[in-house]
């Protein structure tokens, strides 16, 4: 039985021992974060609530869901600024035009109930290396905007997610926004998992084409303990841009697989399987995106 929540029913039902902090503004949130560095931050709740159900008893909960403006989406030139509270559903329904790669990845996540609440920022902080939007964010060369007592700073997404469960958030810091460049070419996301929905990516590859620069950027999730940027594979496409034949696509896949130099082995698949998937999915994603080139 759950440690926190067993007991009688009704108004006398055994309550929870946790303290809930619920700031209304970003300043209040940062102050609370500085004041209670031991508080567990929760926003969408889809990552944290199962931990609480399993008996985790953090000294306090710092809930960001009431912070004004955290779900706002704004533009800063060619960059879309997603507040840290922006959910997958918002990306799918409102941003498919400017961030199609991110929307495509978001559509593969969980089910409707989870997508309505779960935040992209939360996925970055939880640092689950299979996070689908991580692949698209890396392919888009997005940045995480952090705020804390020491001020504001930006970190590239691929540098922010360091390992499974470990991100670059410093003490007293909060993610306040994601800065995602507007897509300037076709994108695609190819994912393999146990089911068509409600499944983590055993491997997921996002690609973004930039025809004006004749380059490709990509991101791989699920295969390693952190998102992978397949640099050599990207360079190949830039070199072969005008003449991208089947051989080049296959070579691209092989280079993406090679870029996963320390693959995860777990119940969902061996390391070799994940590397194989990375190659197959990379070639598939490239073909799909290439078909959409004007």
């Amino acid at each position, binding site marked *: 039985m*759950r440690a*926190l*929540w067993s*007991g009688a*029913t*009704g*108004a006398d*039902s055994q*309550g*929870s*021992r*946790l*303290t*809930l902090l*619920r700031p209304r503004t970003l300043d209040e949130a940062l102050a609370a974060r500085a004041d209670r560095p031991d508080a567990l931050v*929760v926003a*969408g*709740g*889809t990552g944290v*609530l*199962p931990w*609480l*159900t399993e008996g985790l008893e953090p000294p306090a*909960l710092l*809930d960001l*869901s*009431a912070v004004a403006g955290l779900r706002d989406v704004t533009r800063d030139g060619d960059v879309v600024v997603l507040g840290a509270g922006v959910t997958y*559903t918002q990306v799918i329904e409102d941003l498919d035009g400017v961030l199609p790669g991110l929307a495509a990845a978001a559509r593969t996540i*969980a*089910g*409707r*109930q*989870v997508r*309505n*609440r779960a935040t992209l920022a939360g996925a970055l902080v939880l640092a689950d290396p299979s996070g689908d939007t991580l692949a698209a964010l890396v392919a888009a060369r997005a940045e995480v905007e952090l705020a804390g007592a020491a001020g504001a700073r930006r970190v590239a997404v691929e540098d922010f997610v360091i390992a499974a469960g470990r991100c670059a958030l410093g003490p007293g810091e909060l993610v306040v926004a994601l800065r995602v460049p507007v897509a300037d070419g076709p994108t695609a996301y190819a994912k393999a998992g146990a089911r*068509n*929905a*409600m499944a983590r990516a055993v491997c997921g590859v996002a690609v973004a084409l930039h025809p004006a620069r004749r380059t490709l950027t990509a991101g791989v999730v699920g295969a390693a303990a952190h998102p992978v940027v397949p640099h050599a594979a990207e360079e190949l496409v830039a070199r072969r841009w005008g003449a991208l034949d089947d051989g080049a696509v296959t070579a691209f896949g092989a280079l993406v697989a090679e870029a996963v130099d320390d693959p995860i082995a777990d119940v969902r698949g061996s390391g070799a399987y994940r590397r194989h998937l990375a190659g197959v999915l990379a070639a598939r994603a490239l073909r799909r995106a290439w078909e959409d080139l004007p």
Partner: protein
Amino acid sequence: MSVTFSVDGEAYEIADEHATLSLLRVLRDVLQITAAKNACEQGECGSCTVAIDGELACACLVLAGQADGASVETAAGLAGAGSLHPVQEAFVQAGAVQCGFCTPGFVMATRDLLARNADPSDDDIREGLAGNLCRCTGYHKILDAVRAAAVALREDAET
């Protein structure tokens, strides 16, 4: 800090020590509202599906305190006086209810799907209801129910 929200039109005030329980636990254990079920309590099964300010959610993934000021709807609030909601009626008529445990969640998810897509294909239905599991029916009758509900709601809209 006091937490207040409405459930199916009735207002409730939640004590501080209940604000850090999940909304599901508050609904069932504190308020004795059982229309949201508890099967997995991890957001995988959808049996606790409710709508919060019109947005579909798993009540087990929401802190009760996060629902402050919100309007929560459960399947129990859908029926009118003396008649079931068209989605409920469709599930009953299609034989889509066996043990019934998943049904309230499926009814809420179906209502949400059909509000966004009035004429869903089978693929749309499967995707729209991907967050809900049924262990009894094998889903065929559930798909029948959703198709029938879509027709009924479109007919209601036209009259």
